[in-house]
């Protein structure tokens, strides 16, 4: 088709998704949406295949396509103009019950021509633990309301009986109602803007452009794959819950213009809610694939076609009903994200042409901590600690990772201001800052994660409670690349205050008065002068740490993100009295590290 018209329509589709995302954020009143950007909006073709993937959590792009297809199958012949459908069953398409999809048909001149789909993590879904992540769940039945597809709006009219039924099953129904209305507004904007585009260019022309866009993506992606080496690259992730360890194992094989992601060897599904379904695993591997391999290619069905996933049924990455999955997005799905990021990073790094586009793993370990309880205004609040979205960048072949640099699966993730959180909950931050030694050492250092501590503050009920689904306190998960170390693991500590403790201040874990107790899984109180301390992982490093520029190591020590001990023991850098690197002593230290490495006998596996 005419390349100018094609280009204009392609850019209009981008803008439609962007405007729908803005609408979603502005109508939502929930910090997880408008601060953390735990959201997604995309456009789909009439058959439900992905047309234009938007930003937000990218592991939703393909599963929302499956949600569209499930709605098409279920409501065949009954799909009307301005209908809006809801789907949140993980065994049909969703990632977990609290990530609700709203799926809306787009008609033009009486004919169904496209779909929009969006999600937010709703404030509550009626699972046994507030906030949707349910570490205490034993099956899908204890993870709240779940629908394989229902009609929420019938030709633009809210089905009040359906809405009331949903709101009757959740805590904080006023917030869940606002969550749903933010998504309806998003669907309305997507439909209105698509209608304008269709009116201006006509449905046949837009359809031709959409088909060409999918073909273009497939052609460009296959060409990129052909430019990369053929081979296999492996990765492994550990998920620790309550002393039990589950492995996600991945072999990615690239042959000509095809990629196979094979999770054979991954552990059986867990009794804990860290499992994910096959649609979730598929979304999980695409989350790093889109930005790392297709940063300049439109994210649509054309990118999906060259990719095959093998996920053994009954495994942690393809669990069977009724296994619990409410922690999937920060559990098995995130491990799939990380494993795929590692194998894609290795493949890119194997190509001299593409090496500068490889990355070690970014923020590999979310900590889902939902605060809940009576707030300082006489109401009830539920909300996530959005620091989980702050992340940490992985190192590249030419640069350090970005400190508190976000994450690969969500290009727009971020955290709320301290004041925003203190305004919504009766809590006070003792500190929040970059965490020393958290960035994976390497010739290029992984970006640091962060650390923070909170206490209750004039809480009307004496405090609040929190649900924590925190894995990754035993195993580093942000793997390094080319000899780089992984980022340091997470840490979750309940500091029990001494009996007569007065409200105080502290600037690090060691200065919080009281007795520390590691916590990671379940529901805990935050009362009296007790504190909750959280440290989140840094990004993986790139290259041998003893090849790092000594001046960069000295600067890291000066700024407090690397300790003098790590500088000496890991980087082999000796510091001079002025804080700079001592060249002669550094050469000696590094020589000693090389000698120690070679002292280990060569070991065949």
């Amino acid at each position: 088709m005419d390349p100018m018209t094609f280009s204009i329509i392609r850019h209009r589709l981008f803008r439609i998704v962007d405007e729908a995302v803005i609408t979603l954020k502005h109508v939502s009143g929930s910090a997880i949406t408008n601060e953390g950007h735990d959201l997604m909006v995309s456009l789909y073709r009439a058959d439900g295949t992905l047309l234009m993937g938007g930003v937000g959590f990218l592991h939703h792009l393909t599963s929302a396509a499956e949600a569209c297809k499930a709605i098409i199958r279920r409501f065949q012949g009954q799909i009307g103009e301005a209908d809006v459908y809801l789907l949140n069953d993980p065994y049909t398409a969703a990632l977990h019950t609290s990530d609700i999809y709203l799926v809306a048909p787009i008609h033009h001149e009486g004919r169904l021509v496209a779909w929009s789909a969006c999600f937010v993590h709703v404030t509550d879904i009626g699972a046994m633990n507030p906030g949707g992540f349910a570490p205490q769940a034993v099956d899908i039945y204890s993870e709240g309301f779940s629908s394989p597809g229902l009609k929420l709006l019938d030709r633009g009219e809210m089905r009040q009986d359906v809405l009331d039924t949903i709101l009757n099953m959740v805590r904080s129904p006023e917030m869940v109602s606002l969550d749903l209305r933010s998504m309806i507004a998003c669907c309305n904007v997507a439909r209105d803007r698509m209608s304008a585009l269709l009116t201006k260019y006509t449905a046949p022309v837009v359809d031709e452009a959409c088909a060409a866009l999918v073909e273009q993506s497939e052609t460009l992606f296959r060409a990129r794959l052909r430019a990369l080496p053929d081979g296999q690259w492996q990765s492994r992730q550990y998920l620790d819950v309550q002393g039990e360890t589950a492995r996600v194992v991945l072999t990615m094989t690239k042959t000509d213009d095809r990629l196979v992601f094979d999770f054979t060897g991954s552990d059986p599904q867990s009794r804990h809610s860290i499992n994910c379904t096959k649609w979730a695993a598929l979304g999980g591997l695409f989350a790093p694939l889109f930005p790392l391999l297709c940063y300049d290619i439109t994210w649509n069905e054309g990118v999906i076609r060259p990719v095959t996933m093998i996920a053994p049924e009954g495994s942690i990455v393809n669990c069977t009903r009724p296994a619990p999955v409410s922690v999937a997005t920060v559990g098995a799905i995130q491990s799939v994200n990380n494993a795929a990021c590692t194998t894609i990073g290795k493949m890119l790094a194997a190509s001299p042409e593409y090496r500068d586009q490889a990355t070690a793993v970014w923020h590999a370990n979310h900590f889902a901590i939902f605060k809940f309880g009576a707030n300082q205004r006489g109401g009830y609040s539920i909300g996530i600690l959005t620091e989980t979205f702050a992340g940490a960048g992985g190192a590249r072949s030419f640069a350090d990772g970005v400190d508190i640099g976000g994450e690969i699966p969500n290009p727009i993730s971020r955290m709320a201001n301290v004041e925003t959180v203190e305004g919504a909950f009766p809590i006070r931050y003792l500190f929040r800052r970059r965490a020393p030694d958290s960035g994976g050492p390497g010739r290029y250092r992984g970006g640091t994660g962060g650390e923070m501590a909170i206490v209750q503050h004039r809480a009307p009920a004496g405090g609040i409670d929190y649900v924590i689904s925190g894995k990754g306190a035993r195993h580093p998960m942000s793997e390094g690349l080319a000899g780089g170390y992984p980022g340091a693991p997470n840490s979750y500590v309940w500091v029990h205050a001494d009996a007569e403790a007065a409200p105080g201040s502290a600037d690090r874990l060691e200065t919080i008065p009281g007795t520390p107790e590691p916590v990671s899984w379940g529901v805990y109180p935050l009362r009296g002068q007790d504190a909750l301390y959280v440290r989140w992982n840094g990004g993986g490093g790139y290259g041998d740490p003893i090849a790092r520029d000594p001046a960069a190591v000295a600067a890291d020590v000066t700024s407090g993100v690397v300790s003098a001990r790590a500088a000496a023991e890991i980087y082999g850098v000796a510091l001079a009295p002025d804080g700079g690197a001592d060249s002669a002593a550094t050469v000696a230290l590094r020589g000693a590290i090389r000698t120690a490495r070679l002292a280990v006998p060569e070991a065949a596996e």
Partner: protein
Amino acid sequence: MTRFILPTVATDGTICTCAACGHALGPAPWKRGAIRRDLPLAVAGGAAYDTGHAGVFLCQFICPGCAVLLDTETAMAGDAALDDRLHLPAAAN
């Protein structure tokens, strides 16, 4: 023609070598020709990596020729090393 399995490990299609010094690591899998050093986490990375739980290791693969760190893995005892390799036509790389 030299190709790379990782930035640190090259192969001519038959023998894998250290990309830094050219030391021969042998045929695939290249890690068999490297020095393997399993460090308990707390030893490997200092206090930030000391989780208080034994059994998790930073596994280092080191070039016997120049002592450069070729690759790292997080591993638990008994887990096999990850196997990265190229698929080159008519060669075992």
